[in-house]
């Protein structure tokens, strides 16, 4: 006997035996069975097995139904009915709204911080957010914040020098500060300027001095000038 190669048709044999196929499908499966010896045998077996398997066990459905009515309290039915009450849907909707509101608030808060970063990331614009004290005391050259868009990126010290004045460490070394005035717009630097700047920064300590060198103001003015100003 050849083995059936039409698994789809063979899968439908129980439905055919149980007379649960549509007229169209029944004709299709019967046509297959007519040509497939294995399926014909299997169908015959299914038709013989079904009544044998259906015969037992017999149960007293009236007794079972009576037990259900007796053992399931009426409150269980009312509880079931309440489960679909509209107020449950309202609670679920309120919960969704609350979560959405919290998420929106957190998002808004995050966005309020973002502009500070955006300002310092664009040194070319020449704009300095001096009104925002949060950026002024930046103690170290955070690469992401101070990195200019090109040329300076490979050497972190350059990034510090290239940042707007309010981002530079307040204790920056004099040599670095001396160059700061020419660095308002780094994109205008020539290659020679960059090399000079790099050479001057190579000598810097990674940890700035606690105090500026005598006679030099971190802000670029001489201490003598300041003292002369009435200090």
């Amino acid at each position: 006997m050849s083995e059936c190669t039409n698994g789809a048709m063979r899968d439908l044999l129980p439905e055919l035996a149980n007379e649960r196929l549509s007229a169209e499908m029944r004709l299709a499966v019967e046509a297959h069975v007519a040509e497939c010896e294995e399926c014909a045998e299997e169908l015959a077996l299914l038709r013989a097995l079904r009544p044998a398997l259906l015969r037992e066990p017999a149960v007293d459905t009236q007794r079972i139904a009576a037990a259900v009515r007796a053992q399931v309290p009426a409150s269980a039915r009312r509880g079931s009915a309440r489960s679909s009450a509209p107020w449950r849907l309202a609670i679920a909707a309120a919960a969704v709204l609350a979560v959405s509101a919290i998420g929106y608030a957190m998002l808004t808060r995050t966005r309020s911080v973002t502009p500070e970063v955006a300002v310092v990331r664009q040194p070319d614009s020449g704009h300095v957010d001096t009104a925002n004290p949060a950026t002024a005391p930046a103690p170290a050259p955070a690469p992401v914040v101070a990195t200019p868009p090109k040329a300076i990126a490979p050497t972190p010290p350059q990034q510090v020098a290239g940042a707007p004045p309010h981002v530079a460490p307040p204790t920056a070394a004099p040599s670095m500060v001396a160059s700061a005035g020419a660095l308002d717009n780094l994109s205008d630097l020539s290659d020679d300027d960059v090399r000079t700047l790099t050479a001057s920064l190579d000598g810097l300590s990674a940890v700035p001095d606690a105090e500026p060198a005598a006679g030099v103001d971190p802000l670029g003015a001489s201490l003598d000038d300041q003292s002369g100003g009435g200090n």
Partner: protein
Amino acid sequence: MTDHTPSELAPDDVALIARWRGGEERAATMLVERHAQGIARFVASLGERDEVEEVVQDTFVRAFGSLDSFRGESTFRTWLLTIARNLLRDRQRVRKRTKLHVEIQEGDIVSSSNALEGAVAAETEQRLRSAVETLSPMQRSIFTLRVTEGLSYKEIAIAVGSTEGAARVHYHNAMRAIREKIDE
């Protein structure tokens, strides 16, 4: 594909459930009459012999007592079969602890003498049933659900806690085993 799909059955069952919730006692009886015999065959196919009716009754009491958890994602019948399977599993655990009964598990074959106890049948029918009894409980339950209840493999998978593919394999293995047994 089939004339008798679960989706077509579902509205009737759902309507009866609604009527039961509305206080109509007769609705419960109708649902029991519709499904009890199939549940009993399933319970028997899993190896339960002595307390089939008790398990079926517990299944319906449990189901009607917790209709809140029936979301209509499967048919009511499949849900009942799942409850019956879980109840049987609980009973098997108790029996195992008390050592009063052998646990029913895959590969545990119920003897033909027990299966056919009290049955008066023609020789051919007896042979067929004996062949079915040699199947493992998992094979037998899947085969019974497929042949007598007409469940799809998807419904069977839900009822027995397996996968659709595994149900299909079990069914075909069962069919092959029965044919071999008959041909002996």
